[in-house]
C-alpha cells in the first residue's frame, strides 16, 4: 500500500511539473517572436520620422519665434498685474487644462550651478535653467506653431516632444554646460510652463532652446 501511494505521488508530481512546463512554454510562445533585424529596420524607415520632424520644427518654426518672444521680466510683471491678459497674449497649449506654455527670452547672471539646473539672476528675478532633464511639451507647445490636427496618432505627437527635447539636450545644453561658470552672463531663450489657476512666479524653470 505505501508503495502504491509512493508511486501515485510520483505520478502526481510528474503531472504537476508537466502541466507547469506546458503552461510556461505556452506563455513563452505567445510572448516573444523573432525576425531579421534588417527587415524590421527597413519597415521602420517607412514610418513617421519624429526626429526629422522635430529638427525641421526647431529650425523653421521654433527658432524664428524665439526672436519675437517677450522678455521674461516683462512677462512676469504683466502676469502679476494682469494674469488673464498675459495668458491670452503669450501662452499656448495643445491640450486642455490649466497648464499653458510661454516662449521667453532674457539675460541674467549665473549665481549657482546645481546638479540638474543653473540658477540665474535676471534684473528682476531669480529663475532656473533646466540642464539635466529636458522633459515635457513646453518647447513643442509654447511656439503656438505646432498643429496637432495634422497628426493621426497620439504616439507621433508625443514622439515629436521627445525628439525635440533630445535635440535640445544634444545641441544646446551639452555644448553650453561644461563652459558655464558662476558669474557668467547668459543670454537665453526657451519655454516655460505656468499653471493659470495656481500661478506660481517664484519657481520659474526655463527649458532652453538657445543659450549664449
Amino acid at each position, binding site marked *: 500500500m505505501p508503495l502504491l501511494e509512493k508511486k501515485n505521488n510520483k505520478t502526481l508530481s510528474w503531472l504537476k511539473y508537466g502541466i507547469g512546463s506546458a503552461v510556461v512554454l505556452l*506563455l513563452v510562445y505567445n510572448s*516573444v517572436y*523573432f525576425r531579421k*533585424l534588417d527587415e524590421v529596420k527597413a519597415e521602420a524607415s517607412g514610418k513617421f520620422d519624429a526626429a526629422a520632424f522635430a529638427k525641421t520644427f526647431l529650425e523653421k518654426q521654433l527658432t524664428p519665434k524665439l526672436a519675437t518672444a517677450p522678455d521674461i521680466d516683462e512677462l512676469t510683471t504683466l502676469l502679476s498685474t494682469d494674469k488673464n491678459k498675459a495668458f491670452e497674449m503669450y501662452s499656448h497649449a495643445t491640450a486642455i487644462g490649466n497648464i499653458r506654455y510661454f516662449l521667453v527670452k532674457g539675460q541674467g547672471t549665473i549665481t549657482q550651478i546645481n546638479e540638474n539646473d543653473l540658477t540665474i539672476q535676471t534684473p528682476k528675478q531669480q529663475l532656473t535653467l533646466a540642464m539635466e532633464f529636458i522633459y515635457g511639451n513646453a518647447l513643442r507647445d509654447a511656439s503656438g506653431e505646432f498643429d496637432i490636427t495634422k497628426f493621426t496618432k*497620439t*504616439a507621433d505627437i508625443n514622439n515629436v516632444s521627445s525628439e525635440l527635447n533630445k535635440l535640445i539636450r544634444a545641441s544646446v545644453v551639452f555644448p553650453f554646460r561644461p563652459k558655464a561658470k558662476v558669474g557668467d552672463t547668459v543670454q537665453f531663450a526657451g519655454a516655460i510652463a505656468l499653471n493659470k489657476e495656481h500661478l506660481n512666479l517664484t519657481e520659474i524653470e526655463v527649458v532652453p532652446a538657445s543659450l549664449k
Partner: protein
Amino acid sequence: MQTTLETQKQRLSKLQPLIALFVLCLIIGLLSDKFFTVSNFWNVLRQISVNICLSVGMTLVVLMAGIDLSVGSVLALCGAITAGLFKMGIELPSQNLYIGFTLLGASLAGVLTGALLGFFNGFVITRFKVPSFVATLAMLTVARGLTMLWTKGFPISGLGEQFAYMGTGWFLGVPVPVWISAVVVALAVFLSDKTKLGRYIYAIGGNENASLLSGININKVKIIVYTIAGALAAVGGLMVTSRLDSAQPNAGTGYELDSIAAVVIGGTSLSGGKGSIWGTVLGAIIIGVLNNGLVLLNVSPFWQQVVKGFVILLAVIIDKANSKNG
C-alpha cells in the same frame, strides 16, 4: 458587562475608517456638486487602482512588521521595461536578429522584473539582516537609477491602443484598472485569510521569535512577501504606463508614501501582526477621495500635501489611542 463594552469598542475601532470615509464623502459632496456624479465615481476608482495594488503588497509587508520604500521606483522601472520591450524589443545586430515582445510578453517581463527586485529586497533583509527600511531605501535609489539608464532619461511613449486598454479601457461597464485591482484584492484576501502563508505573515508580525520557535521558516515567508510586493508594484507600473501611454522615468515618485498612508489609515499596525487587506482598500479609497475632493475644491497642490500629511498623522494617533485602550 465590561467585556461587552470592550467588544463594542473594538468593533467601533474597526469601523473607524468606514466612518471617516462616509464623513469625508459627505463633506466633499456638500461643498462640490461634481463629487456625487457617476463619472467622478469611476474617475476616483480608476485613480486609486494603482495605489490599491501597491498598498496590498505593502500591507503584507507591514503585517510582518516590515516596510517597503522601493515600490514607487520599482513601479517606474517595471513600467519602463515593459514599455521598452513592447515598443523596441531587443536588437542583436551581430546576429541580425530582432526579438520582439507581444503585449503579454512585455507585461510578463515587467512583472517578473518587479518580482525579482522584491526577491532581492527579501534576500538582503533575511540573509544580511539589513533593516527593511534601509534595504528598500537602497532599492528605491537603485531602481530609479536603473530606470534612468534604461530610458536614458526620456519617456518611452507611443505604445498604441492595445497597450492603452489596460489603463484606459472598459470591460463590462467597469474600467479595466478597477478589474485588475479587484482581482489583486481578492487574491490577497484569500492569501491572508485562507492560507498557511497568510497565517504565518500575521504570526511573524505578532511575534517573530515565537514564530521561529514554532517552526515557521521566517526567511522564506519574508522573501515570498517582498517578492509579492515587488510583483504588485510592477502591476501598478503597467497600469500607470498604459494609462499615460508613456513610461516616464520619474513615474511613481512619492507613491510609496501614498501606499503606506493607505495601509496606516486602513488600521494596519506599523509594528505588525494587526490589520487587514480590506482595511487597506478602505484606506486607499479615503486617500483617493481626499485627493479627488481637494482637486474638486480647487485647493492648491501644495496645501493638498499638507492636508494629506495631517490626515496620516491623525490616523496614526487614533491607532495608537486604540491600541492603548484595547
